[in-house]
């Protein structure tokens, strides 16, 4: 065997080394039997986030890794905590609506609807049939848009960029549609307690039909590219698996829970706004892995299209706002032309909506799952306490369990499929 140091000054240049065949074989066997455990390795601690392009929000995942395997992980949230629940205690009920926009900012209209529905139930008011159907239409459009972001961004994270543009072409059209309706592109603040900010613009129904006819093509393009794509399937199948039992225990709701095969959709279980009269299916997954979470969302987009189509057919005429001077502001032209309406306007702005003292928990099916508001009123114009139940706070709780034992690269695949929105996660 080789002994001595060939480049040291006392090394002899005329000396040749000889290695026997036996020695080579013995050495090779020794290497063969060496495994990773025999190497003197140390665990490596690594941070993913708080600012990481693939987390789509600010949170930190602290990992103890061995090679590329995550042995232990810890998830830290709160980087986007704005004190939503503290701020709203000083606001009037109407003033809370813009704050709800900033919860899940991918589908702000749904948050508006969720909050206003809870307050309306407290006040005991029944909104007009036209408003109910308009709320269904905008909520389902928002669901499609939210799922487009989630699926599109998830696919980008695992290396399929094209799909993102297919979805965003269609999403841009939907965004223009809602811009025509609300004047905003992200934070709409369109819903009011007791009604809506204003009625649909002229020709809106036809525009919706035209734009929605584009969506199936985008869905077909994306599904066609990835559904049986070898790379995609390898990245997503059996990755981040949640059993049905665990998913429920962790408080999963919405598409993430349905991907685990649990049939729970508040639109079916606790129908509001006549959802029980619409003909639509609740897509369910089987494995509860990343693949199912993506395709449950894709199927839900198709179902939302069906709901909008039916809603447009039955959209009734009539007023959009309820006739209650203690809740709705009078029409602007009346305020400018009559003393009574002007006084009404001033009084309502100063005194605000005052629900009776009591407490309520009301939830709707947001794109991400059960969005609930627990509201305590002391009878004054300010909410005594509002607790928002954001769906992805509980989904995020399970991330630790889902990534431990997996590979580093799976973090982004899992995270994308859960659709964690930091705005509602941290409030």
């Amino acid at each position: 065997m080789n002994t001595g140091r060939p480049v040291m000054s006392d090394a002899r240049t005329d000396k040749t080394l000889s290695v026997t065949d036996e020695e080579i074989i013995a050495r090779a066997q020794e290497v063969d039997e060496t495994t990773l455990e025999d190497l003197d390795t140390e665990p490596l601690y690594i941070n993913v986030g708080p600012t990481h392009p693939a987390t789509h929000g600010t949170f930190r995942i602290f990992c103890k890794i061995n090679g590329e395997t995550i042995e232990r992980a810890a998830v830290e949230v709160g980087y986007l905590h704005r004190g939503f629940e503290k701020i709203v205690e000083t606001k009037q009920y109407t003033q809370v609506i813009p704050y709800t926009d900033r919860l899940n900012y991918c589908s702000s209209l749904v948050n508006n609807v969720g909050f206003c529905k809870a307050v309306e139930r407290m006040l005991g008011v029944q909104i007009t049939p036209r408003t109910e159907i308009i709320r269904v239409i905008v909520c389902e459009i928002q669901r499609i848009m939210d799922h487009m972001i989630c699926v599109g961004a998830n696919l980008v994270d695992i290396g399929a960029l094209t799909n993102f543009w297919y979805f965003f072409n269609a999403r841009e059209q939907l965004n223009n549609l809602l811009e025509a309706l609300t004047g905003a592109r992200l934070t709409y603040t369109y819903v009011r307690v007791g009604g809506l900010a204003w009625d649909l613009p002229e020709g809106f129904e036809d525009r919706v039909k035209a734009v929605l006819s584009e969506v199936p093509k985008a869905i077909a393009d994306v599904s066609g590219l990835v559904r049986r794509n070898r790379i995609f399937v390898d990245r997503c199948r059996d990755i981040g698996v949640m059993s049905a039992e665990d998913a429920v225990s962790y408080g999963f709701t919405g598409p993430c829970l349905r991907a685990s095969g649990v049939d729970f959709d508040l639109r079916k279980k606790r129908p509001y706004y006549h959802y029980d009269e619409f003909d639509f299916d609740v897509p369910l997954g089987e494995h509860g892995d990343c693949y199912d979470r993506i395709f449950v969302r894709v199927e839900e987009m198709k179902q939302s299209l069906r709901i909008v189509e039916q809603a447009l057919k039955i959209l009734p005429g009539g007023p959009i706002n309820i006739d209650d001077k203690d809740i709705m502001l009078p029409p602007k032209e009346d305020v400018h032309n009559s003393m009574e309406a002007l006084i009404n306007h001033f009084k309502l702005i100063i005194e605000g909506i005052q629900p009776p003292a009591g407490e309520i928990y009301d939830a709707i099916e947001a794109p991400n799952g059960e969005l609930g508001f627990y509201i305590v009123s002391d009878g004054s114009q300010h909410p005594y306490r509002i607790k928002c139940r954001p769906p992805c706070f509980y989904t995020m709780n399970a991330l630790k369990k889902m990534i431990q034992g997996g590979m580093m690269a799976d973090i982004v695949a899992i995270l994308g499929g859960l659709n964690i929105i930091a705005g509602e996660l941290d409030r």
Partner: protein
Amino acid sequence: MTHNEKQKLEELLTAVEQRVPGAIEGSERPYDDLVILVKRAQCHEVLKFFREQGFDLLSDIAGVDLLGVEHKDRFQLVYILYSIANDLRLRVKVNVPEDDMNVPSVSDIWHSANWAEREAYDMFGFHFEGHPNLSRILCHSEFEGHALRKDYPIMKGQWATTSTDLMSHLEEE
């Protein structure tokens, strides 16, 4: 709520009174929802019973600070439960006095209670006994006081300077 659901909830209320005698302080029915007031000492037992009765989804835990409101105790904890199999919603309320904020943790019954209880601890200072990792979650670990208490000034800011060492969180199950 349908008549059938109401009946099922009332039956549950009777059942829990028999199963855990003396634990129920009362019940309220605001806006057709059933709210059961439970004594703090027995709340774990009662919540475990509801879990066995099919309330498999703990939707949320909400803390409420009743400072200045005429009420027996300053704080309240509200457990919002849902039974997926039976389509029932139920709230369980526990009164918590200011001088002793210990509450048994239910994180052994529902996994979702883990973060929900951490949030209630962070925002109000409830101390959940038996929680695997009772630490702040939305506010920084250096934050002093509890932000959602009514006596925490809304404009009061705090400087937090060091990043949190998550080593102790790694080993948590």
